[in-house]
Protein backbone atom coordinates (compact mmCIF):
# COMPACT_ATOMS: atom_id res chain seq x y z
CA UNK A 1 0.00 0.00 0.00
CA UNK A 2 2.80 2.38 0.89
CA UNK A 3 4.34 1.74 -2.51
CA UNK A 4 1.08 2.62 -4.22
CA UNK A 5 0.72 5.79 -2.20
CA UNK A 6 4.12 6.97 -3.25
CA UNK A 7 3.31 6.56 -6.96
CA UNK A 8 2.51 9.97 -8.35
CA UNK A 9 -0.79 10.21 -10.21
CA UNK A 10 0.94 12.26 -12.95
CA UNK A 11 2.65 9.05 -14.03
CA UNK A 12 -0.67 7.76 -15.38
CA UNK A 13 -1.09 10.73 -17.75
CA UNK A 14 0.73 9.22 -20.77
CA UNK A 15 -1.34 6.09 -20.37
CA UNK A 16 -4.57 8.04 -19.98
CA UNK A 17 -3.61 10.11 -23.05
CA UNK A 18 -3.05 6.93 -25.09
CA UNK A 19 -6.24 5.40 -23.78
CA UNK A 20 -8.23 8.49 -24.70
CA UNK A 21 -6.76 9.01 -28.17
CA UNK A 22 -6.43 5.40 -29.25
CA UNK A 23 -9.35 3.72 -27.50
CA UNK A 24 -11.97 5.98 -25.95
CA UNK A 25 -12.41 8.52 -28.76
CA UNK A 26 -12.38 5.92 -31.57
CA UNK A 27 -14.82 3.77 -29.59
CA UNK A 28 -17.26 6.61 -29.12
CA UNK A 29 -16.73 7.69 -32.72
CA UNK A 30 -17.43 4.14 -33.92
CA UNK A 31 -20.72 4.07 -32.02
CA UNK A 32 -21.68 7.33 -33.70
CA UNK A 33 -20.54 6.13 -37.14
CA UNK A 34 -22.63 2.98 -36.82
CA UNK A 35 -25.68 5.17 -37.50
CA UNK A 36 -24.18 6.94 -40.55
CA UNK A 37 -23.15 6.08 -44.12
CA UNK A 38 -19.65 7.53 -43.64
CA UNK A 39 -16.97 6.20 -46.05
CA UNK A 40 -14.07 8.41 -45.07
CA UNK A 41 -14.62 10.67 -48.08
CA UNK A 42 -18.20 11.91 -47.76
CA UNK A 43 -19.78 14.05 -45.08
CA UNK A 44 -21.09 12.32 -41.98
CA UNK A 45 -24.80 11.77 -42.62
CA UNK A 46 -27.07 10.02 -40.17
CA UNK A 47 -29.06 7.17 -41.67
CA UNK A 48 -30.67 5.82 -38.53
CA UNK A 49 -30.84 2.03 -38.32
CA UNK A 50 -30.18 1.49 -42.06
CA UNK A 51 -26.78 -0.15 -41.43
CA UNK A 52 -28.30 -2.62 -39.02
CA UNK A 53 -31.20 -3.60 -41.23
CA UNK A 54 -28.77 -4.15 -44.11
CA UNK A 55 -26.46 -6.09 -41.81
CA UNK A 56 -29.16 -8.40 -40.54
CA UNK A 57 -30.36 -9.12 -44.05
CA UNK A 58 -26.83 -9.74 -45.33
CA UNK A 59 -26.32 -13.45 -45.94
CA UNK A 60 -22.54 -13.00 -45.64
CA UNK A 61 -22.86 -11.53 -42.13
CA UNK A 62 -24.76 -14.58 -40.87
CA UNK A 63 -22.18 -16.78 -42.53
CA UNK A 64 -19.36 -14.93 -40.75
CA UNK A 65 -21.23 -15.22 -37.45
CA UNK A 66 -21.63 -18.95 -38.05
CA UNK A 67 -17.92 -19.33 -38.87
CA UNK A 68 -17.00 -17.48 -35.70
CA UNK A 69 -19.33 -19.77 -33.76
CA UNK A 70 -17.69 -22.85 -35.26
CA UNK A 71 -14.31 -21.42 -34.37
CA UNK A 72 -15.37 -20.84 -30.75
CA UNK A 73 -16.84 -24.32 -30.45
CA UNK A 74 -13.65 -25.97 -31.73
CA UNK A 75 -10.96 -23.73 -30.29
CA UNK A 76 -12.25 -22.89 -26.78
CA UNK A 77 -12.55 -26.49 -25.52
CA UNK A 78 -9.27 -27.27 -27.26
CA UNK A 79 -7.53 -24.31 -25.60
CA UNK A 80 -8.90 -25.01 -22.12
CA UNK A 81 -8.13 -28.72 -22.40
CA UNK A 82 -4.62 -28.01 -23.71
CA UNK A 83 -3.86 -25.47 -20.97
CA UNK A 84 -5.16 -27.84 -18.27
CA UNK A 85 -3.47 -30.98 -19.59
CA UNK A 86 -0.11 -29.26 -20.05
CA UNK A 87 -0.34 -27.62 -16.63
CA UNK A 88 -1.05 -30.97 -14.96
CA UNK A 89 1.82 -32.60 -16.84
CA UNK A 90 4.36 -29.87 -16.15
CA UNK A 91 3.51 -28.33 -12.76
CA UNK A 92 6.17 -30.28 -10.84
CA UNK A 93 9.65 -28.90 -10.25
CA UNK A 94 12.48 -30.25 -12.34
CA UNK A 95 14.75 -29.45 -15.26
CA UNK A 96 12.72 -31.31 -17.87
CA UNK A 97 9.47 -29.82 -16.70
CA UNK A 98 11.00 -26.35 -16.75
CA UNK A 99 12.10 -26.91 -20.35
CA UNK A 100 8.62 -28.21 -21.15
CA UNK A 101 7.01 -25.10 -19.68
CA UNK A 102 9.18 -22.89 -21.89
CA UNK A 103 8.24 -24.96 -24.93
CA UNK A 104 4.55 -24.59 -24.13
CA UNK A 105 4.84 -20.85 -23.71
CA UNK A 106 6.94 -20.20 -26.84
CA UNK A 107 4.14 -20.28 -29.46
CA UNK A 108 2.41 -17.55 -27.46
CA UNK A 109 5.23 -15.03 -27.63
CA UNK A 110 5.85 -15.49 -31.35
CA UNK A 111 4.30 -12.51 -33.16
CA UNK A 112 0.93 -13.44 -34.65
CA UNK A 113 2.04 -12.84 -38.22
CA UNK A 114 5.17 -14.96 -37.87
CA UNK A 115 3.08 -17.67 -36.23
CA UNK A 116 0.56 -17.57 -39.08
CA UNK A 117 3.31 -17.72 -41.72
CA UNK A 118 4.87 -20.64 -39.88
CA UNK A 119 1.59 -22.55 -40.10
CA UNK A 120 1.13 -21.56 -43.74
CA UNK A 121 4.44 -23.31 -44.38
CA UNK A 122 3.65 -26.31 -42.14
CA UNK A 123 0.36 -26.89 -43.93
CA UNK A 124 1.63 -26.12 -47.43
CA UNK A 125 0.41 -28.97 -49.69
CA UNK A 126 3.53 -28.88 -51.93
CA UNK A 127 6.57 -28.39 -49.72
CA UNK A 128 5.24 -28.39 -46.15
CA UNK A 129 6.52 -31.04 -43.71
CA UNK A 130 3.05 -32.47 -43.06
CA UNK A 131 2.49 -33.03 -46.78
CA UNK A 132 6.00 -34.46 -47.12
CA UNK A 133 5.30 -36.84 -44.26
CA UNK A 134 2.01 -37.88 -45.82
CA UNK A 135 3.71 -38.46 -49.20
CA UNK A 136 6.54 -40.42 -47.58
CA UNK A 137 4.24 -42.75 -45.69
CA UNK A 138 1.77 -43.11 -48.50
CA UNK A 139 -1.04 -41.40 -46.60
CA UNK A 140 -3.37 -39.17 -48.59
CA UNK A 141 -2.57 -35.48 -48.36
CA UNK A 142 -5.64 -33.84 -46.83
CA UNK A 143 -6.78 -30.56 -48.30
CA UNK A 144 -6.02 -28.64 -45.15
CA UNK A 145 -6.49 -25.17 -46.47
CA UNK A 146 -8.39 -25.65 -49.73
CA UNK A 147 -11.32 -27.54 -48.25
CA UNK A 148 -13.73 -25.34 -46.21
CA UNK A 149 -13.80 -27.65 -43.17
CA UNK A 150 -10.09 -28.37 -43.45
CA UNK A 151 -9.42 -24.63 -43.32
CA UNK A 152 -11.85 -24.07 -40.43
CA UNK A 153 -10.25 -26.81 -38.34
CA UNK A 154 -6.71 -25.75 -39.26
CA UNK A 155 -7.26 -22.14 -38.17
CA UNK A 156 -8.95 -23.33 -34.96
CA UNK A 157 -6.09 -25.71 -34.13
CA UNK A 158 -3.57 -22.92 -34.71
CA UNK A 159 -5.27 -20.80 -32.07
CA UNK A 160 -5.71 -23.85 -29.88
CA UNK A 161 -1.97 -24.23 -29.45
CA UNK A 162 -1.28 -20.65 -28.39
CA UNK A 163 -2.26 -21.28 -24.78
CA UNK A 164 0.69 -19.78 -22.91
CA UNK A 165 -1.26 -17.49 -20.57
CA UNK A 166 -4.02 -19.97 -19.87
CA UNK A 167 -1.34 -22.57 -19.21
CA UNK A 168 0.40 -20.29 -16.71
CA UNK A 169 -2.84 -19.53 -14.88
CA UNK A 170 -3.74 -23.23 -14.67
CA UNK A 171 -0.20 -24.05 -13.56
CA UNK A 172 -0.27 -21.46 -10.77
CA UNK A 173 -3.68 -22.68 -9.64
CA UNK A 174 -2.56 -26.32 -9.59
CA UNK A 175 0.43 -25.39 -7.46
CA UNK A 176 -1.85 -23.71 -4.93
CA UNK A 177 -3.70 -26.95 -4.19
CA UNK A 178 -2.14 -28.18 -0.92
CA UNK A 179 0.08 -31.25 -1.29
CA UNK A 180 -1.55 -32.74 1.83
CA UNK A 181 -4.76 -33.34 -0.10
CA UNK A 182 -2.83 -35.60 -2.45
CA UNK A 183 -0.97 -37.29 0.40
CA UNK A 184 -4.28 -37.99 2.10
CA UNK A 185 -5.55 -39.51 -1.15
CA UNK A 186 -2.36 -41.58 -1.33
CA UNK A 187 -2.85 -43.01 2.15
CA UNK A 188 -6.52 -43.63 1.37
CA UNK A 189 -5.40 -45.76 -1.56
CA UNK A 190 -7.03 -43.66 -4.28
CA UNK A 191 -5.88 -44.39 -7.82
CA UNK A 192 -4.63 -41.57 -10.10
CA UNK A 193 -7.79 -41.52 -12.22
CA UNK A 194 -9.96 -41.30 -9.10
CA UNK A 195 -7.82 -38.49 -7.69
CA UNK A 196 -8.04 -36.62 -10.99
CA UNK A 197 -11.82 -36.94 -11.14
CA UNK A 198 -12.58 -36.38 -7.45
CA UNK A 199 -9.87 -33.98 -6.35
CA UNK A 200 -7.92 -32.23 -9.09
CA UNK A 201 -10.67 -31.45 -11.58
CA UNK A 202 -13.22 -30.18 -9.03
CA UNK A 203 -10.58 -28.01 -7.41
CA UNK A 204 -9.47 -26.71 -10.81
CA UNK A 205 -13.05 -26.03 -11.94
CA UNK A 206 -13.08 -22.32 -11.02
CA UNK A 207 -9.98 -21.60 -13.07
CA UNK A 208 -11.29 -23.67 -15.98
CA UNK A 209 -14.51 -21.66 -15.97
CA UNK A 210 -12.48 -18.46 -15.90
CA UNK A 211 -10.33 -19.61 -18.82
CA UNK A 212 -13.42 -20.64 -20.80
CA UNK A 213 -14.94 -17.17 -20.30
CA UNK A 214 -11.73 -15.47 -21.32
CA UNK A 215 -11.13 -17.75 -24.31
CA UNK A 216 -14.60 -17.17 -25.75
CA UNK A 217 -13.88 -13.47 -25.67
CA UNK A 218 -10.48 -14.03 -27.23
CA UNK A 219 -11.69 -16.55 -29.80
CA UNK A 220 -14.07 -14.00 -31.31
CA UNK A 221 -11.11 -11.78 -32.17
CA UNK A 222 -7.96 -13.87 -32.25
CA UNK A 223 -8.55 -15.63 -35.56
CA UNK A 224 -8.18 -12.45 -37.60
CA UNK A 225 -4.45 -12.70 -38.37
CA UNK A 226 -4.35 -16.35 -39.53
CA UNK A 227 -7.55 -15.88 -41.51
CA UNK A 228 -6.11 -12.84 -43.24
CA UNK A 229 -2.58 -14.18 -43.82
CA UNK A 230 -3.21 -17.84 -44.65
CA UNK A 231 -6.68 -18.19 -46.09
CA UNK A 232 -7.81 -14.61 -46.73
CA UNK A 233 -11.24 -15.63 -45.52
CA UNK A 234 -11.52 -18.54 -47.93
CA UNK A 235 -11.95 -21.11 -49.27
CA UNK A 236 -15.52 -20.15 -50.24
CA UNK A 237 -15.63 -17.74 -47.25
CA UNK A 238 -15.24 -20.69 -44.82
CA UNK A 239 -12.82 -18.69 -42.68
CA UNK A 240 -14.50 -15.32 -43.02
CA UNK A 241 -15.04 -14.63 -39.33
CA UNK A 242 -16.67 -11.57 -37.85
CA UNK A 243 -13.35 -9.66 -37.57
CA UNK A 244 -12.52 -10.58 -41.18
CA UNK A 245 -15.96 -9.48 -42.34
CA UNK A 246 -15.56 -6.23 -40.47
CA UNK A 247 -12.08 -5.66 -41.92
CA UNK A 248 -13.28 -6.24 -45.46
CA UNK A 249 -16.01 -3.64 -45.12
CA UNK A 250 -13.91 -1.08 -43.26
CA UNK A 251 -10.62 -1.24 -45.13
CA UNK A 252 -11.38 -2.83 -48.49
CA UNK A 253 -14.73 -1.22 -49.29
CA UNK A 254 -14.25 1.79 -47.02
CA UNK A 255 -17.79 1.50 -45.65
CA UNK A 256 -16.75 2.82 -42.26
CA UNK A 257 -20.30 3.46 -41.07
CA UNK A 258 -21.40 -0.06 -41.96
CA UNK A 259 -18.24 -1.59 -40.42
CA UNK A 260 -18.90 0.34 -37.22
CA UNK A 261 -22.35 -1.20 -37.08
CA UNK A 262 -20.68 -4.64 -37.40
CA UNK A 263 -18.30 -3.74 -34.57
CA UNK A 264 -21.16 -2.63 -32.35
CA UNK A 265 -23.08 -5.82 -33.11
CA UNK A 266 -20.01 -7.90 -32.26
CA UNK A 267 -19.61 -6.05 -28.97
CA UNK A 268 -23.22 -6.68 -27.97
CA UNK A 269 -23.07 -10.34 -29.07
CA UNK A 270 -19.88 -10.96 -27.11
CA UNK A 271 -21.36 -9.25 -24.07
CA UNK A 272 -24.47 -11.45 -24.25
CA UNK A 273 -22.44 -14.66 -24.56
CA UNK A 274 -20.27 -13.68 -21.61
CA UNK A 275 -23.31 -12.78 -19.54
CA UNK A 276 -24.94 -16.17 -20.19
CA UNK A 277 -21.69 -17.97 -19.34
CA UNK A 278 -21.26 -15.90 -16.21
CA UNK A 279 -24.77 -16.79 -15.05
CA UNK A 280 -24.08 -20.47 -15.65
CA UNK A 281 -20.84 -20.30 -13.70
CA UNK A 282 -22.62 -18.51 -10.88
CA UNK A 283 -25.30 -21.14 -10.81
CA UNK A 284 -22.66 -23.88 -10.51
CA UNK A 285 -21.17 -21.87 -7.66
CA UNK A 286 -17.67 -22.17 -9.00
CA UNK A 287 -16.65 -18.73 -7.80
Amino acid at each position, binding site marked *: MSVLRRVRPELSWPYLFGLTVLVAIPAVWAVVLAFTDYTGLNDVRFTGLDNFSRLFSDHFFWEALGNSGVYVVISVPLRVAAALTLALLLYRQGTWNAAGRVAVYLPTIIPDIAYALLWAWLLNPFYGPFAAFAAETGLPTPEWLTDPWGARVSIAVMGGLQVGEGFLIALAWRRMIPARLYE*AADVEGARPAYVLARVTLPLMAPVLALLALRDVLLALQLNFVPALIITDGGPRRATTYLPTYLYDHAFRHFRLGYASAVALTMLVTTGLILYVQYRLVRRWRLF
Partner: protein
Amino acid sequence: MTTEIRGLRRTFRGRRGSADVHALDGVDLDIEPGELLVIIGPSGSGKTTLLRAIAGLEPVDSGAISIDGRDISRVPAGERDVAMVFQDGALYPHLDVLANITFGLRARRVPRADAVAAAERAAVVLGIDGLLRRRPDELSGGERQRVGLARAIVREPSLFLLDEPLASLDAQLRDQARTEIRSVQRRLERSMVVVTHDDHEAMALGDRIAVLHAGRIIQVDKPAVVYDRPATPFVARLLGRPAINLVAPETLGLRSKDGCAGVVGIRPEHLRLVAPAAGRADGRVELIEHLGSDVVAHVRVGDDDLVVRTGLGSAFSVGDEVGVEVDGDAVRYFPADA
Protein backbone atom coordinates in the same frame (compact mmCIF):
# COMPACT_ATOMS: atom_id res chain seq x y z
CA MET B 1 -0.84 -56.67 15.20
CA THR B 2 2.69 -55.67 16.09
CA THR B 3 4.42 -53.08 14.01
CA GLU B 4 8.18 -53.43 13.98
CA ILE B 5 10.52 -50.71 12.79
CA ARG B 6 14.16 -51.67 12.37
CA GLY B 7 17.15 -49.49 11.50
CA LEU B 8 15.11 -46.91 9.61
CA ARG B 9 17.26 -44.26 7.92
CA ARG B 10 16.36 -41.24 5.89
CA THR B 11 18.87 -38.61 4.86
CA PHE B 12 18.06 -35.35 3.14
CA ARG B 13 20.95 -34.27 0.95
CA GLY B 14 22.26 -30.84 1.87
CA ARG B 15 21.87 -28.32 -0.92
CA ARG B 16 24.71 -26.14 -2.13
CA GLY B 17 27.37 -27.31 0.27
CA SER B 18 25.24 -27.40 3.43
CA ALA B 19 25.53 -30.58 5.46
CA ASP B 20 23.25 -33.58 4.94
CA VAL B 21 20.40 -33.88 7.42
CA HIS B 22 19.87 -37.28 8.99
CA ALA B 23 16.15 -36.99 9.62
CA LEU B 24 16.01 -40.63 10.66
CA ASP B 25 19.29 -42.05 11.88
CA GLY B 26 18.62 -45.71 12.55
CA VAL B 27 15.24 -45.83 14.25
CA ASP B 28 14.20 -49.03 16.03
CA LEU B 29 10.69 -49.08 17.46
CA ASP B 30 7.98 -51.60 18.24
CA ILE B 31 4.32 -50.65 18.31
CA GLU B 32 2.40 -53.18 20.37
CA PRO B 33 -1.09 -54.36 19.42
CA GLY B 34 -3.77 -52.01 20.68
CA GLU B 35 -1.40 -49.53 22.27
CA LEU B 36 -1.29 -45.79 21.90
CA LEU B 37 2.30 -44.80 21.35
CA VAL B 38 3.24 -41.13 21.45
CA ILE B 39 6.31 -39.95 19.60
CA ILE B 40 7.62 -36.76 21.13
CA GLY B 41 10.55 -34.62 20.11
CA PRO B 42 11.48 -31.02 19.44
CA SER B 43 10.94 -29.61 15.94
CA GLY B 44 13.48 -31.04 13.52
CA SER B 45 13.90 -34.24 15.53
CA GLY B 46 12.46 -36.32 12.68
CA LYS B 47 9.16 -37.26 14.31
CA THR B 48 7.01 -36.20 11.35
CA THR B 49 9.44 -37.86 8.93
CA LEU B 50 9.11 -41.08 10.96
CA LEU B 51 5.32 -40.91 10.84
CA ARG B 52 5.32 -40.20 7.11
CA ALA B 53 7.75 -43.07 6.56
CA ILE B 54 5.39 -45.45 8.35
CA ALA B 55 2.51 -44.11 6.26
CA GLY B 56 4.46 -44.56 3.05
CA LEU B 57 4.54 -40.88 2.15
CA GLU B 58 8.28 -40.62 2.69
CA PRO B 59 10.74 -43.01 1.09
CA VAL B 60 13.42 -44.46 3.37
CA ASP B 61 17.05 -45.06 2.49
CA SER B 62 17.36 -48.25 4.50
CA GLY B 63 15.65 -50.21 7.23
CA ALA B 64 12.42 -52.11 7.45
CA ILE B 65 8.86 -51.54 8.63
CA SER B 66 6.70 -54.59 9.13
CA ILE B 67 3.20 -55.17 10.36
CA ASP B 68 2.72 -58.70 11.73
CA GLY B 69 5.85 -59.86 9.99
CA ARG B 70 4.86 -58.47 6.59
CA ASP B 71 7.50 -56.01 5.37
CA ILE B 72 5.70 -52.94 4.10
CA SER B 73 8.64 -50.59 3.66
CA ARG B 74 8.42 -50.81 -0.14
CA VAL B 75 4.63 -51.11 -0.31
CA PRO B 76 2.71 -48.07 -1.68
CA ALA B 77 0.97 -45.95 0.96
CA GLY B 78 -2.51 -47.03 -0.10
CA GLU B 79 -1.80 -50.73 0.39
CA ARG B 80 -0.24 -50.55 3.86
CA ASP B 81 -3.41 -50.89 5.91
CA VAL B 82 -2.59 -47.70 7.81
CA ALA B 83 -4.67 -44.53 8.08
CA MET B 84 -3.29 -41.08 8.69
CA VAL B 85 -4.91 -38.09 10.33
CA PHE B 86 -3.27 -34.86 9.27
CA GLN B 87 -2.77 -31.86 11.48
CA ASP B 88 -5.65 -29.83 10.06
CA GLY B 89 -7.57 -32.87 8.84
CA ALA B 90 -6.50 -32.40 5.19
CA LEU B 91 -10.17 -32.32 4.21
CA TYR B 92 -11.30 -31.81 0.61
CA PRO B 93 -12.79 -28.32 0.54
CA HIS B 94 -15.22 -29.07 -2.30
CA LEU B 95 -16.70 -32.17 -0.66
CA ASP B 96 -19.12 -32.23 2.25
CA VAL B 97 -18.31 -34.05 5.47
CA LEU B 98 -19.99 -37.27 4.36
CA ALA B 99 -18.07 -37.35 1.07
CA ASN B 100 -14.85 -36.59 2.92
CA ILE B 101 -15.37 -39.48 5.30
CA THR B 102 -16.32 -41.93 2.55
CA PHE B 103 -13.53 -40.74 0.21
CA GLY B 104 -11.18 -43.63 0.92
CA LEU B 105 -13.90 -46.27 0.88
CA ARG B 106 -15.27 -45.04 -2.44
CA ALA B 107 -11.73 -44.93 -3.84
CA ARG B 108 -11.51 -48.61 -2.93
CA ARG B 109 -14.80 -49.30 -4.70
CA VAL B 110 -16.78 -50.03 -1.55
CA PRO B 111 -20.48 -49.82 -2.54
CA ARG B 112 -21.98 -46.44 -1.82
CA ALA B 113 -24.60 -47.66 0.68
CA ASP B 114 -21.98 -49.53 2.72
CA ALA B 115 -19.62 -46.56 2.71
CA VAL B 116 -22.36 -44.20 3.86
CA ALA B 117 -23.44 -46.61 6.61
CA ALA B 118 -19.84 -46.86 7.86
CA ALA B 119 -19.45 -43.08 7.74
CA GLU B 120 -22.66 -42.58 9.72
CA ARG B 121 -21.51 -45.02 12.39
CA ALA B 122 -18.15 -43.26 12.70
CA ALA B 123 -19.86 -39.88 12.78
CA VAL B 124 -22.03 -40.98 15.69
CA VAL B 125 -18.97 -42.20 17.60
CA LEU B 126 -17.31 -38.81 17.13
CA GLY B 127 -20.44 -36.74 17.63
CA ILE B 128 -20.40 -35.18 14.17
CA ASP B 129 -23.50 -36.93 12.80
CA GLY B 130 -25.27 -33.60 12.58
CA LEU B 131 -22.61 -32.15 10.31
CA LEU B 132 -22.58 -34.64 7.45
CA ARG B 133 -23.95 -32.18 4.89
CA ARG B 134 -21.59 -29.32 5.83
CA ARG B 135 -18.56 -28.24 3.85
CA PRO B 136 -15.17 -28.12 5.62
CA ASP B 137 -15.13 -24.29 5.62
CA GLU B 138 -18.30 -24.36 7.73
CA LEU B 139 -16.61 -26.40 10.46
CA SER B 140 -14.59 -25.38 13.50
CA GLY B 141 -11.03 -26.62 13.96
CA GLY B 142 -12.14 -29.32 16.38
CA GLU B 143 -14.89 -30.51 14.06
CA ARG B 144 -12.47 -30.70 11.14
CA GLN B 145 -10.12 -32.77 13.26
CA ARG B 146 -12.93 -35.17 14.09
CA VAL B 147 -13.88 -35.51 10.42
CA GLY B 148 -10.26 -36.39 9.67
CA LEU B 149 -10.38 -38.99 12.43
CA ALA B 150 -13.69 -40.35 11.13
CA ARG B 151 -12.16 -40.74 7.68
CA ALA B 152 -9.43 -42.86 9.25
CA ILE B 153 -11.83 -44.89 11.41
CA VAL B 154 -14.11 -46.04 8.58
CA ARG B 155 -11.19 -47.71 6.88
CA GLU B 156 -10.63 -49.93 9.95
CA PRO B 157 -6.84 -49.94 9.48
CA SER B 158 -4.38 -51.96 11.60
CA LEU B 159 -2.55 -48.80 12.51
CA PHE B 160 -3.63 -45.20 12.98
CA LEU B 161 -1.11 -42.40 12.48
CA LEU B 162 -1.91 -38.96 13.89
CA ASP B 163 0.33 -36.03 13.05
CA GLU B 164 0.12 -33.33 15.75
CA PRO B 165 -3.65 -33.85 15.97
CA LEU B 166 -4.21 -31.21 18.63
CA ALA B 167 -1.75 -28.54 17.53
CA SER B 168 -4.29 -26.48 15.59
CA LEU B 169 -6.87 -26.46 18.39
CA ASP B 170 -7.15 -23.85 21.11
CA ALA B 171 -6.29 -24.78 24.69
CA GLN B 172 -9.83 -25.57 25.88
CA LEU B 173 -10.71 -27.78 22.93
CA ARG B 174 -7.39 -29.52 23.18
CA ASP B 175 -8.13 -31.25 26.49
CA GLN B 176 -11.51 -32.39 25.21
CA ALA B 177 -10.11 -33.63 21.90
CA ARG B 178 -7.34 -35.46 23.73
CA THR B 179 -9.85 -37.37 25.83
CA GLU B 180 -11.81 -38.18 22.69
CA ILE B 181 -8.83 -39.57 20.83
CA ARG B 182 -8.01 -41.67 23.87
CA SER B 183 -11.52 -43.08 24.19
CA VAL B 184 -11.87 -43.76 20.46
CA GLN B 185 -8.58 -45.64 20.49
CA ARG B 186 -9.71 -47.69 23.53
CA ARG B 187 -12.96 -48.53 21.85
CA LEU B 188 -11.40 -49.59 18.54
CA GLU B 189 -8.59 -51.52 20.24
CA ARG B 190 -6.26 -50.68 17.36
CA SER B 191 -2.69 -49.44 17.56
CA MET B 192 -2.28 -45.72 17.26
CA VAL B 193 0.81 -43.57 16.86
CA VAL B 194 0.50 -39.91 17.77
CA VAL B 195 3.20 -37.38 17.01
CA THR B 196 3.44 -34.33 19.24
CA HIS B 197 5.88 -31.79 20.57
CA ASP B 198 3.74 -31.17 23.65
CA ASP B 199 4.92 -33.04 26.77
CA HIS B 200 1.62 -32.58 28.56
CA GLU B 201 -0.26 -34.14 25.65
CA ALA B 202 2.28 -36.96 25.37
CA MET B 203 1.98 -37.95 29.00
CA ALA B 204 -1.80 -37.70 29.13
CA LEU B 205 -2.34 -39.61 25.89
CA GLY B 206 0.30 -42.29 25.63
CA ASP B 207 0.43 -45.86 26.87
CA ARG B 208 4.07 -45.40 26.07
CA ILE B 209 6.19 -42.46 25.00
CA ALA B 210 9.02 -42.63 22.49
CA VAL B 211 11.44 -39.73 22.69
CA LEU B 212 13.06 -38.80 19.41
CA HIS B 213 16.13 -36.60 19.18
CA ALA B 214 18.15 -35.87 16.02
CA GLY B 215 16.66 -38.84 14.19
CA ARG B 216 17.19 -41.38 16.98
CA ILE B 217 14.92 -42.93 19.58
CA ILE B 218 16.46 -42.15 22.97
CA GLN B 219 13.93 -43.71 25.28
CA VAL B 220 10.70 -45.66 25.00
CA ASP B 221 8.69 -46.36 28.11
CA LYS B 222 5.54 -45.65 30.10
CA PRO B 223 4.94 -41.92 30.67
CA ALA B 224 5.60 -42.17 34.42
CA VAL B 225 8.89 -43.98 33.86
CA VAL B 226 10.10 -41.53 31.22
CA TYR B 227 9.16 -38.68 33.55
CA ASP B 228 10.70 -40.14 36.72
CA ARG B 229 13.68 -41.90 35.20
CA PRO B 230 14.64 -39.98 32.04
CA ALA B 231 17.46 -41.68 30.16
CA THR B 232 19.33 -38.49 29.39
CA PRO B 233 19.29 -34.83 30.46
CA PHE B 234 17.70 -34.10 27.08
CA VAL B 235 14.72 -36.35 27.83
CA ALA B 236 14.52 -34.90 31.33
CA ARG B 237 14.19 -31.36 30.00
CA LEU B 238 11.69 -32.34 27.33
CA LEU B 239 9.06 -33.53 29.83
CA GLY B 240 7.59 -31.48 32.64
CA ARG B 241 6.84 -27.83 33.20
CA PRO B 242 8.45 -25.98 34.88
CA ALA B 243 11.44 -27.84 33.49
CA ILE B 244 13.66 -30.08 35.55
CA ASN B 245 16.72 -28.57 37.27
CA LEU B 246 19.97 -29.86 35.79
CA VAL B 247 22.86 -28.95 38.04
CA ALA B 248 26.20 -30.24 39.27
CA PRO B 249 25.63 -32.56 42.26
CA GLU B 250 27.78 -30.32 44.44
CA THR B 251 25.30 -27.47 44.06
CA LEU B 252 22.79 -29.53 46.02
CA GLY B 253 25.36 -30.75 48.50
CA LEU B 254 25.41 -34.20 46.87
CA ARG B 255 28.41 -36.29 45.94
CA SER B 256 28.83 -37.38 42.36
CA LYS B 257 28.60 -41.09 41.79
CA ASP B 258 31.12 -43.21 39.96
CA GLY B 259 30.18 -43.88 36.36
CA CYS B 260 27.69 -41.03 36.31
CA ALA B 261 27.70 -37.80 34.37
CA GLY B 262 28.65 -34.62 36.21
CA VAL B 263 25.09 -33.44 36.22
CA VAL B 264 22.00 -34.50 38.14
CA GLY B 265 18.34 -33.81 37.54
CA ILE B 266 15.86 -32.83 40.18
CA ARG B 267 12.31 -31.78 39.43
CA PRO B 268 10.96 -28.53 40.95
CA GLU B 269 8.36 -30.47 42.96
CA HIS B 270 11.11 -32.39 44.73
CA LEU B 271 12.74 -29.28 46.15
CA ARG B 272 11.49 -27.40 49.23
CA LEU B 273 12.29 -23.98 50.58
CA VAL B 274 13.33 -24.00 54.22
CA ALA B 275 15.05 -21.63 56.61
CA PRO B 276 18.63 -20.68 55.70
CA ALA B 277 21.18 -23.34 56.66
CA ALA B 278 18.36 -25.83 57.34
CA GLY B 279 18.60 -27.45 53.88
CA ARG B 280 21.26 -28.95 51.66
CA ALA B 281 22.01 -25.65 49.95
CA ASP B 282 21.53 -21.95 50.57
CA GLY B 283 20.47 -19.32 48.14
CA ARG B 284 18.45 -16.20 47.47
CA VAL B 285 14.96 -15.94 45.99
CA GLU B 286 15.26 -14.05 42.68
CA LEU B 287 11.77 -14.36 41.31
CA ILE B 288 8.40 -15.77 42.28
CA GLU B 289 5.93 -16.80 39.59
CA HIS B 290 2.26 -17.46 40.29
CA LEU B 291 1.01 -20.07 37.83
CA GLY B 292 -2.54 -20.52 39.13
CA SER B 293 -2.44 -23.84 40.94
CA ASP B 294 1.28 -23.49 41.50
CA VAL B 295 3.81 -21.03 42.78
CA VAL B 296 7.31 -21.33 41.41
CA ALA B 297 10.35 -19.74 43.04
CA HIS B 298 13.60 -19.15 41.21
CA VAL B 299 16.43 -19.46 43.69
CA ARG B 300 20.01 -18.43 43.02
CA VAL B 301 22.40 -21.00 44.48
CA GLY B 302 26.02 -20.20 43.70
CA ASP B 303 26.13 -19.88 39.93
CA ASP B 304 23.03 -21.98 39.39
CA ASP B 305 19.40 -21.05 39.17
CA LEU B 306 17.12 -23.57 40.86
CA VAL B 307 13.41 -23.70 40.15
CA VAL B 308 11.41 -24.74 43.22
CA ARG B 309 7.72 -25.52 43.27
CA THR B 310 6.29 -24.14 46.52
CA GLY B 311 2.84 -24.31 48.00
CA LEU B 312 0.35 -21.50 47.47
CA GLY B 313 0.78 -20.28 51.01
CA SER B 314 4.55 -19.94 50.74
CA ALA B 315 5.90 -17.41 53.21
CA PHE B 316 8.98 -16.49 51.19
CA SER B 317 9.32 -13.44 48.99
CA VAL B 318 11.79 -12.04 46.51
CA GLY B 319 15.14 -11.17 48.06
CA ASP B 320 14.85 -13.62 50.96
CA GLU B 321 17.82 -15.75 51.88
CA VAL B 322 16.56 -19.33 51.97
CA GLY B 323 17.69 -22.90 52.36
CA VAL B 324 16.81 -25.55 49.76
CA GLU B 325 15.92 -29.06 50.90
CA VAL B 326 16.16 -31.95 48.47
CA ASP B 327 14.04 -35.09 48.28
CA GLY B 328 17.05 -37.35 47.95
CA ASP B 329 15.19 -40.31 46.39
CA ALA B 330 14.03 -38.15 43.49
CA VAL B 331 17.48 -37.05 42.40
CA ARG B 332 18.25 -38.51 38.99
CA TYR B 333 21.86 -39.44 38.28
CA PHE B 334 22.51 -39.81 34.55
CA PRO B 335 24.90 -42.40 33.22
CA ALA B 336 28.15 -40.90 31.96
CA ASP B 337 27.51 -41.88 28.34
CA ALA B 338 24.16 -40.12 28.26
